[in-house]
């Protein structure tokens, strides 16, 4: 492994631009760290998070990755919130081609890498593959980052998904020393090795490896929330009539935010949109959520008619049924559903109560 200065990291981002990547990464917008098309890494931003609460902060240091997760997910690029799949014009079907260019994701955290791999299982494994997801996924170059700090809403350690990156990133960075940061760089894929070589950098010594490890350990120690996984699936399936579902239903607004910010939720719906002037009909796919009425609508009505059963569907799918379906948990502990629930419902607290007998 080698080490970079902050300037070398910034030069690497520029190199990705020069190499014709669409560079997607942290962008400061509307009081949050969001993901989008970026020129250079923002410097010195952090965040303060709690249930139903997020504030962007200035850290007063030189960190490029001193923030934790914001409301955006990488899902929005691989599985966009809305897209037209085909259109019908003059009684003929016209496919809408999906031709993604090469993209670089900068700053993918451990739980996010895990979430991308969860969605890989959903969309790419089994009998049917989602072609558009696959085409986009193949074009992505992932620059992952080990977390050097955790938000109060994080709990990636529950599933051993972080804070150190374990997935199949192209390269992994660790940021050390916030005031004058340097980066431990691990180039994994061949593409990454070639690109990293263009920047150069001194080999990292033992002491530096040590410091990088200490930074990640510190993040792990900062994690305060827990979601013990042992026996969780059975415990939830045994608790389907627990009174706590009524309690959470009396607070939950069925707004769907928790599913929309979740990096693993994959539900979608389709609609036909008619352009009255051209008489073209567009067949669109949109993100859906088990908190909407139409998600479970069948002839005669919605199966998940009440908020109680919608919340139960969400929680038991994420943490229990997902395991049966995809052999992993649907939750990587990113904590977004906690921060971005407008009324601060925290799934770790709900689970703790649901696991106790009423």
């Amino acid at each position, binding site marked *: 492994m080698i080490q970079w200065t902050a300037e070398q990291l910034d030069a690497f981002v520029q190199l990705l631009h020069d190499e014709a990547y669409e560079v997607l990464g942290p962008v400061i917008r509307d009081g949050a760290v969001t993901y989008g098309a970026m020129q250079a890494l923002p410097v010195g931003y952090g965040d303060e998070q709690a249930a139903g609460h997020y504030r962007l902060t200035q850290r007063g240091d030189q960190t490029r990755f001193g923030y934790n997760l914001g409301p955006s997910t990488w899902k929005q690029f691989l599985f966009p919130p809305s897209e037209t799949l085909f259109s019908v014009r003059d009684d003929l079907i016209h496919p809408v081609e999906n031709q993604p260019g090469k993209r670089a994701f900068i700053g993918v955290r451990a739980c996010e890498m895990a979430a991308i791999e969860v969605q890989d299982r959903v969309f790419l494994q089994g009998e049917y593959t989602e072609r558009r997801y696959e085409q986009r996924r193949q074009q992505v170059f992932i620059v992952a980052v080990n977390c050097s700090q955790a938000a109060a809403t994080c709990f990636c350690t529950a599933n051993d998904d972080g804070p150190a990156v374990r997935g199949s990133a192209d390269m992994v960075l660790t940021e050390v020393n916030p005031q004058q940061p340097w980066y431990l760089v691990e180039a994994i894929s061949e593409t990454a090795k070639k690109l990293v070589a263009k920047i150069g950098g001194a080999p990292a010594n033992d002491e530096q490896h040590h410091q990088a490890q200490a930074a990640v350990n510190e993040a792990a120690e900062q994690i305060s929330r827990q979601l013990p996984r042992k026996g969780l699936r059975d415990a939830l399936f045994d608790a389907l009539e627990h009174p706590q579902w009524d309690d959470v239903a009396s607070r939950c607004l069925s707004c769907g935010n928790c599913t929309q910010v979740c990096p693993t939720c994959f539900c979608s719906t389709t609609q036909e949109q008619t352009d009255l002037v051209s008489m073209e009909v567009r067949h669109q796919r*949109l993100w859906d959520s088990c908190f909407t009425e139409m998600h479970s609508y069948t002839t005669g009505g919605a199966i998940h008619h009440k908020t109680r059963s919608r919340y139960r569907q969400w929680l038991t799918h994420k943490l229990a049924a997902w395991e049966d379906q995809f052999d992993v948990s649907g939750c990587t502990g990113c904590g977004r559903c906690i921060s971005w629930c*407008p009324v601060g419902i925290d799934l770790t607290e709900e689970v703790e109560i649901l696991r106790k007998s009423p």
Partner: protein
Amino acid sequence: MNKPSLAVFKFASCDGCQLSLLDCEDELLKVAELVEIANFPEASRRILPGPYDIALVEGSITTEHDEERIQEIREGSRILISIGACATAGGIQALRNYADVDQMVRAVYPQPSYIDTLATSTPISRHVKVDYELHGCPINKYQLLEVLLAFTAGRRPQVSNDSVCMECKAAGNVCVMVAQGEHCLGPITHAGCGALCPSFDRGCFGCYGVKEQADVESLFVFLRDQRGMTTQQAVALVQSFNADAPELKVIASDRKWGRRREDRPE
């Protein structure tokens, strides 16, 4: 096959919703191909006699004459669609439902004796059977076109009944409630505007009306207990464009809101 006939009727309202139909411009000619515009005084002086296949009704019921006229319109229309916050939830003029209407009349009009009005402003569905309600203040013109298209084709309109939050997240907005501590009615509000207000950095004030399974009280309990909102602020927040929506009335009229449902007296 004869083209279905369309009529547009107005009650107490600002005209904004029916103007969305005129505002369609490019699409308006297609609308005229799909339906016979039989009675639409804002668009044409030509008024064909009823009965009509589709009636769009804008505005709320605020006079005795309105009460009679809506019955006639219902009898003379095969499908009745109420459009906008006034027609679906009483509109801004339903603020009178919480006040003394005579006092209001005296405060507003130089000659109060000219005013002949009911004490309440109520939605169309309170008076006659309504086949479909399209929400918004004003309604979204593309949704109106979709509804017309669907009813002429005899299919279900593709109008989302999700929350504004769903549109807000799809638009990639940063939630103003979480990231800025704004009060936002998005979680309990019917989608349709594309999360217009949060896209411009302010909270939703609920002009698209209350969504299905909306737990209005839960939101306000949270805003009071966690955000220090006062009852007065809560009432001001909900008493706007859909003041007569039953779900909002709980907050506006029951000053004991804020207790959990199980603690409420039956």
